[in-house]
């Protein structure tokens, strides 16, 4: 039985938005859900699905031109939601390609850079990645120590980056480094550039259907035209993160819905004490609470999407949605895992995988606590980071 749409949220979307959602939903049902258990066991991201996601138009979806579909932000949100209903790894892939690779090109790149890179990125022929975080600088990116020094013909980069999604499989990396004056700048480094390697981080118990990497830059020389002319200052890097956070806030809804639907169905069919456990008050209390929280989360991102489309979304509003929705999704996943009892710990069901994934999502793109501090600063005018 599908979950009733109590608040008639469907009516809040346009016909195009619903068609786009349906396309991605069908893709997830037919191409992702049948394989996801094995990919998760094997800790592989199925790169063979990249051309299919590109053919649907998911890559660079919000961009007008360069072969991109040019959909609105609400539609993009629905794409993220449906992908993460499958697995956070697919939503992460699209968030990174769109928000952290294509967006910096669009916002800070030269016309030549856009014309060269955006079309093949939309076609999925060029996979992008974004490297800001370092082993010693996560929540405090402004302290990063990767160096960019000017040379006769361009720049030379030195440093180590960590937790860069897709870097191992990427054809183009957006690297953030400090110049001699200590100003953070964005650079494009092509795959195969001598001095750059991107080993994969193994042993992850979360986001297993996603490539997470280190990026090592050892006297990596790049030509002058590979600097992103507009990417100057930490703020420009944070603008990219805002894009990704937006899609995460929507994606979390998808993961929460996947867990919730699985738990409701389980509770209706699992018999204990001669009746479905869904008939017990303790179970209903959990379901009622989760349903309300998920509805809240959906309304929050819908309004945020409308503001994104009007160019009015404050970065703290994005933080609020990322913080609230991921927390809601993580708590939902944990409660659903509980409702499934022992079945909840095996991968015959999706809930544990989502729960484990959401632990990463809770931490990446600004930890839950950092978003709390962003909201705190917005509310009080006082920064509490250090």
């Amino acid at each position, binding site marked *: *039985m*599908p979950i009733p749409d109590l608040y008639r949220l*469907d009516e809040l979307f346009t*016909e*195009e938005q619903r*068609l*786009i959602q*349906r*396309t991605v939903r*069908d*893709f997830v049902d037919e191409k992702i859900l049948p394989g996801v258990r094995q990919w998760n066991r094997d800790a592989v991201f199925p790169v063979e699905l990249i051309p299919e996601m590109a*053919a*649907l*138009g*998911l890559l660079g*979806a919000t961009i007008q031109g360069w072969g991109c*579909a*040019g*959909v609105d932000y609400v*539609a993009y949100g629905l794409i993220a939601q449906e992908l993460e209903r499958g697995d956070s790894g697919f939503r992460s892939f699209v968030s990174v390609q769109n928000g952290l690779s294509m967006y910096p090109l669009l916002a800070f790149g030269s016309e030549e850079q856009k014309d060269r890179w955006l079309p093949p990125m939309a076609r999925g022929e060029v996979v992008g990645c974004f490297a800001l975080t370092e082993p010693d600088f996560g929540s405090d990116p402004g302290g990063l120590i990767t160096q960019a020094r000017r040379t006769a013909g361009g720049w030379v980069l030195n440093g180590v980056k960590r937790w860069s999604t897709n870097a191992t499989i990427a054809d183009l990396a957006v690297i953030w480094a400090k110049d001699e004056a200590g100003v953070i700048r964005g650079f494009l480094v092509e795959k195969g550039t001598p001095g750059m390697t991107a080993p994969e981080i193994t042993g992850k118990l979360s986001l297993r259907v996603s490539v997470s990497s280190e990026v090592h830059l050892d006297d990596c020389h790049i030509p002058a035209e590979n600097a992103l002319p507009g990417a100057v200052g930490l703020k420009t890097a944070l603008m990219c993160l805002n894009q990704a956070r937006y899609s995460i806030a929507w994606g979390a809804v998808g993961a929460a819905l996947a867990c919730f639907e699985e738990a409701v169905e389980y509770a209706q069919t699992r018999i204990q004490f001669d009746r479905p456990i869904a008939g017990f008050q303790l179970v209903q209390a959990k379901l009622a609470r989760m349903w309300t929280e998920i509805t809240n989360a959906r309304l929050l991102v819908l309004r945020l999407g409308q503001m994104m489309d009007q160019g009015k979304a404050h970065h703290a509003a994005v933080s609020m949605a990322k913080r609230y929705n991921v927390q809601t999704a993580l708590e939902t996943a944990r409660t659903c895992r509980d409702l499934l009892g022992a079945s909840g710990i095996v991968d015959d069901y999706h809930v544990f995988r989502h729960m484990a994934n959401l632990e990463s999502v809770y931490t990446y793109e600004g930890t839950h606590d950092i978003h709390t501090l962003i909201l705190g600063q917005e509310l009080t005018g006082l920064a509490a980071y250090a």
Partner: protein
Amino acid sequence: MNILVCVKHVPDTEAAVKIAADGKSIQTQDVNFVLNPYDEYAVEEALRLREARGGEVTLLSAGPEEAKKSLRTGLAMGADKAVHLVCAHRHDTLTLARALAAAAGQIPFDLILCGKQAVDDDEAQLGVMLAEALSLPSVSAIVKLEVLDGKAVARREVESGLEVVETSLPAVFTAQKGLNDPRYPSLKGIMMAKQKKIEEIACAQSDSQVEILDLAYPKSRSGGKIVGQGAAAVPELVRLLHEEAKVL
């Protein structure tokens, strides 16, 4: 090659259908409607023929205002044009086939594709009746279609086998599952569909020749019955299967 595809807007197969208060129709409120799944095969086949041979794919649907949504889905898949025969009330299939035939007369086509049936009323009549109304040959429930010069060879499913049929063109074909793997409407297709105009034709308000008197739910299934255990229970089981269930 110009291809006309007839499509229908039907309740989603996952929807829980409820009978309306009049007892003769279904509640449409709160039910998600979609492009009839068999029509998706028809649209996909038309798009592939166009991609191979050029021409245009035109969609034709009869129904209330809402039917435009399924036309929009077909346009998003890649069809070039859509014509909506606006009918406020439900017609019997023969009346509908005649109305569609009249509309089809104004659209140039080399062949017509339909789904083999609509998943709401499951009549599986429209395609064949449309062919009759247009005095064209028809091949129903096809799983393969090859278009040659002025003729086509289709494979259709028959009881425990396949039948290979050759026909002159134009002709009407109805699509069975297996004909192809319908594409997802891409984001670009969906955005472009917004720009495509849906032409409206008023439906001649002829009376329906068939009236639905009553709709009823199927009997709800009761739980199974355990006859006994081991070999001793077999004779009783056989007797019940024979006399009660009447399957032996």
